[in-house]
């Protein structure tokens, strides 16, 4: 089957076509905790073109912070690995944030997503990371394979801004 250029909704035939991607950011950085703040700042700078509300901005920064922290604390708990961040913007003001690692993976994603579940109580993790990501996005998907890594995808459509 020939590959279609660009992303369409061919995998989900019943759904309306997706709005076209208007801009994209790709970053990769080592899993150092100092990069949590860097990732948030980069997201904030990139999203400025959509003029999000302060609440939308803080919510997305917080969700991203959780995803990046998971890579640092869990995926690469034994050392330093690469965290890949990609942010795509669609014409309908949808923001798609993808955080990918090649770390140890999550054996049971459903369990990991439960509120208060943590494998690192000694590290004072609250177990609320996925709950926060879920609350601050319209849709969260987590795909993981033990030994191969995890990809977290968060989708949020920003509100329409009034034209001045």
């Amino acid at each position: 089957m020939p590959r279609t250029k660009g992303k369409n909704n061919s995998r989900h035939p019943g759904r309306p076509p997706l709005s076209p991607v208007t801009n994209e950011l790709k970053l990769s950085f080592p899993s150092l905790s100092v990069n949590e703040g860097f990732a948030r700042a980069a997201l904030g700078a990139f999203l400025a073109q959509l003029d999000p509300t302060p609440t939308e901005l803080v919510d997305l920064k917080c969700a991203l912070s959780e995803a990046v922290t998971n890579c640092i604390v869990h995926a690469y708990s034994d050392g330093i690995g690469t965290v890949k961040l990609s942010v795509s913007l669609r014409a309908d003001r949808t923001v798609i944030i993808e955080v990918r690692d090649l770390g140890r993976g999550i054996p049971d994603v459903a369990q990991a997503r439960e509120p208060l579940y943590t494998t690192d109580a000694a590290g004072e993790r609250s177990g609320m990371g996925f709950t926060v990501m879920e609350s601050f996005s319209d849709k969260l998907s987590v795909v993981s394979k033990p030994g191969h890594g995890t990809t977290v995808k968060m989708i949020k459509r920003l509100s329409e801004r009034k034209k001045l």
Partner: protein
Amino acid sequence: MIKSNCTLTFEKNPPDSITVSVSGEIDHHAAVSLRRDTDAVLWDYAPKKLTIDMSGIEFMDSSGLGFIMGRYDVMRKLGGVLFIRDPSPCVEKMLKLTGFDRRVTVIKNSKERQSV
């Protein structure tokens, strides 16, 4: 140690209470030194009451909740109590979202609040 975007000051309120004021951004990176510095003070003075002033927090993710619950446990070991004072809007949102506002005592409007 790379500098974090978070500062901490503490104040002794004799006879047996301590106020810790945290400002800036609390994420996992900042929480490491925040935890170490706060606990150094706690084990030193063993207060009966710890108040964490969070009016100056501009950003907090779930690492901040971990920090709060961790201090709650330390205070329980010391036979004392923990209060969260004047949480900024982002802190309040996180506490509410995760139900932590029902697990810790929150004091609001202890002084004139800055406009939100």
